[in-house]
């Protein structure tokens, strides 16, 4: 029952081979197995969006996928898309700048999930309206800002 299973996953471009317990969620594997702690664990029931990561190009809830299911997949986390915080080094650099300028974060707990979700929206729908943004971010909870600044940052 408590056996571990071998998986091979490409995380942020690097292929890692590990053994995982089948019951370990993807986000726990990222945090505890790979020490990628940018993906946050909020509700563990798919509601808050803090654990949002990309698997094979699609955003998913890291708490609602098991690590074992990602065997053979390509996983991207906030560490992978954010780069070093210097212009030109990360996919979400412009969004990060806009979040900072608009004061779209306070504690920052929700921000990695917000950035990945916003990036997914903007990739599909450049020039998204405020309504589009609110709908797209409706599955990502922020307990600090009241969302207005976040929507403004994504629009910027």
């Amino acid at each position, binding site marked *: 029952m*408590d056996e571990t*299973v071998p998986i091979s996953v490409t995380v942020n471009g690097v292929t890692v081979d590990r053994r995982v317990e089948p019951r370990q969620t993807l986000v*726990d594997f990222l945090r505890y197995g790979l020490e990628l702690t940018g993906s946050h664990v909020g509700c*563990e029931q798919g509601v808050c969006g803090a654990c949002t990561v990309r698997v094979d190009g699609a955003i998913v*809830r890291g708490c609602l996928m098991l690590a074992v*299911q990602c065997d053979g997949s390509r996983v991207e986390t906030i560490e992978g898309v954010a780069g070093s915080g210097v212009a030109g080094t990360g996919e979400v650099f412009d969004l990060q700048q806009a979040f900072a300028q608009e004061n779209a974060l306070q504690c920052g707990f929700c921000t990695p999930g917000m950035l990945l979700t916003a990036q997914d929206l903007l990739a599909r729908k450049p020039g998204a309206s405020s309504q589009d943004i609110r709908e797209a971010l*409706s599955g990502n909870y922020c307990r600090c800002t009241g969302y207005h600044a976040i929507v403004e940052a994504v629009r910027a």
Partner: protein
Amino acid sequence: MKPVQFAYHRPASLDEALALMERYGPDGRILAGGQSLVPALNMRLAAPAALVDINRIPGLDGISLEPEGLVIGAMTRHEAVENSPLVARHAPLIAQAMPYVGHRAIRSRGTVGGSVAQADPAAELPACLVALDAVIRVAGTGGKRETPAARFFRGIYTTDLAPGEIVTAVVAPSIQAGWRSHFAELARRQGDYALVGLATQCLVEGGVIKGARLVFCGVGPTPVRAQRAEAALLGRRPDADVSAEAGRALDADLDPQGDVHASPALRRHLSRVLLGRVLAHIAA
């Protein structure tokens, strides 16, 4: 919390999956998209001895047009349904409902078969399937069978599935000339569970409703067909008076429960509001 320990199987064929389900009996659970099961595991509301992951079984996903209608494989993700030109053309009601299913990061994983087998009373897809007279395809160790959607959903999280059986596909008859469909829903926020949802398909000839299917979600243990309201529409033009009359007929069709999200009276009110909006859309 974290899930209890369980054995994990990733069968490569449907037969292998069925054999595993037979072996584990009620202690085995199918893992499809996992968007309902994994939260239940995390909260320890479910503690199966084994998960049978059907994500890698070839042939369980995909959308195709067959003589019986539009066939959507059980492992087809909500996102794929949402983006499918075939679904938009042949079962537009289902396409219209998809954006209401959770959030993008849920629809990228959640599956058609999972929604059907889960039978959440607030779920959009079961209501659409009942409205469309769709058929659920099921496989078991004893063979394959089909069940009309109207008989498949038996109660809250309860279906016609026998232990060990697996949903393999849903089949929706292709929409016919003259029929118009519309899905609408009211929730506190986009992506939240429906307070009330309404799947509608009507035959409109010369502005007059000649056929009507009104199926609600979120107002009963299963999708609820509003037959009295349907009858109030037949042979009529869907203007404001007819809409109000059909809305009054809903009182006898629906018996919604109250919960922390909405009282029975609010759900009744919202059902009438939705019906009015849907009819305005159908009439337009």
